[in-house]
């Protein structure tokens, strides 16, 4: 019966926030962007610049939380410089000593987030901050618990993928849709906006890693009866650095898929 309790917890929190914010509704919403990084010294300044640009233009209140996992390339030093440029209220550094994985990076980041919404995205420029205002509008439009970027519907798409990569991606997505019926079109994407309390609840329940982690987040969201909105995004495969999809990734994806199939 945990299921019902969760639904109500989230609703209580919403009611509370609504009651508290009736006067300054627009001002009170704050968006915390979590940027987990590992060897992103080239990309980090660019993504931060883009975030500042689009948040500045749309006027939403925001903060950027950089969670660097002890990158040997000096990502943290670059982040410190950025903090000096843009201010320590906008750029918040929460480094960790070593690479500990995405799930724990989110838990770590959320702990320090002061916003009531959390946006997670990759720092490698494959996710463009220009979509964030659309995410926010979508969320407000339907009061969604989470808004997911999707490469697979509407104007969404990819850049830099060959036929093989497209085939694997579409095939994997089809199999997943058939087996799990998750109610969202892009399961392995990691460009999403969450209500903070929803993200906390979901992360707490997730056990898998890598591609499967993102998929599990959506599946758990369905289990908890969260509402999901979608925004088509263009995914530009990493400009600097290598993007990989080998046999190992595929095997671990299938393992994760079957685990979710049998346990959720």
């Amino acid at each position, binding site marked *: 019966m945990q299921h019902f309790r969760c639904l109500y917890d989230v609703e209580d929190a919403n009611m509370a926030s609504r009651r508290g914010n009736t006067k300054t509704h627009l001002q009170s919403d704050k968006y915390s962007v979590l940027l987990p990084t590992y060897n992103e010294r080239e990309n980090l*300044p660019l993504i931060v*610049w883009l975030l500042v640009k689009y948040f500045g233009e749309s006027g939403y209140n925001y903060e950027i939380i950089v969670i660097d996992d002890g990158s040997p390339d000096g990502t943290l030093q*670059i982040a410190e410089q950025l903090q000096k440029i843009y201010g320590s209220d906008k750029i918040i550094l929460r480094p960790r000593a070593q690479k500990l994985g995405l799930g724990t990076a989110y838990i770590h980041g959320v702990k320090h987030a002061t916003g009531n919404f959390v946006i997670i995205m990759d720092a490698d420029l494959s996710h463009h901050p220009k979509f964030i205002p659309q995410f926010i509008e979508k969320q407000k439009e339907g009061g969604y618990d989470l808004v997911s970027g999707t490469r697979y519907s509407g104007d969404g*798409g990819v850049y830099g993928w060959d036929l093989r990569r*497209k085939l694997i991606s579409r095939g994997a997505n*089809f199999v997943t849709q*058939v087996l799990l019926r998750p109610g969202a079109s892009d399961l392995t994407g990691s460009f999403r906006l969450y209500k903070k309390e929803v993200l906390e609840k979901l992360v707490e329940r997730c056990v898998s890693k890598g591609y499967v982690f993102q998929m599990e987040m959506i599946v758990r969201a369905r289990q908890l009866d969260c509402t999901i909105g979608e925004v088509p995004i*263009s995914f530009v495969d990493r400009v600097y650095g290598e993007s990989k999809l080998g046999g190992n990734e595929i095997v671990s994806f299938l393992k994760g898929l079957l685990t979710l*199939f049998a346990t*959720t």
Partner: protein
Amino acid sequence: MSHHTFRHRGVIKVRCLFESGGFCHSYFTLLCPIILCTMTKLLEWVFGVSLIGIAWGLVTFDLLDLQLPPQYKDVAWPMPIYLLVVFGCYSLATVGYRVATFNDCEDAAKELQAQIKEAKGELKKKGLKM
């Protein structure tokens, strides 16, 4: 119950079958939310496939001794293979179509490249040392 309807449509139909026969109404309304919440996707599939399997067996081997016309049997026995082939074709067609119509975001890549240049220039001015 409304929020379960989408997720467990198949199961709810089954429940209605029992209910319309007046079969332990209150028992099922009580138990169903619990079953529905705890049923994994795997169990849903096992459940669905066994229902189809039972229906198929009943007609093909005439297990209930209903003395169905022989045409029924002729249609029924190749049904599992027929369904598999149809599903396979549907899957191939769907995936093929989606790969063919997967958007290539050339403009997005160009826009990003231009913005990277702009960003680098501006960050340098602000004193960032790469």
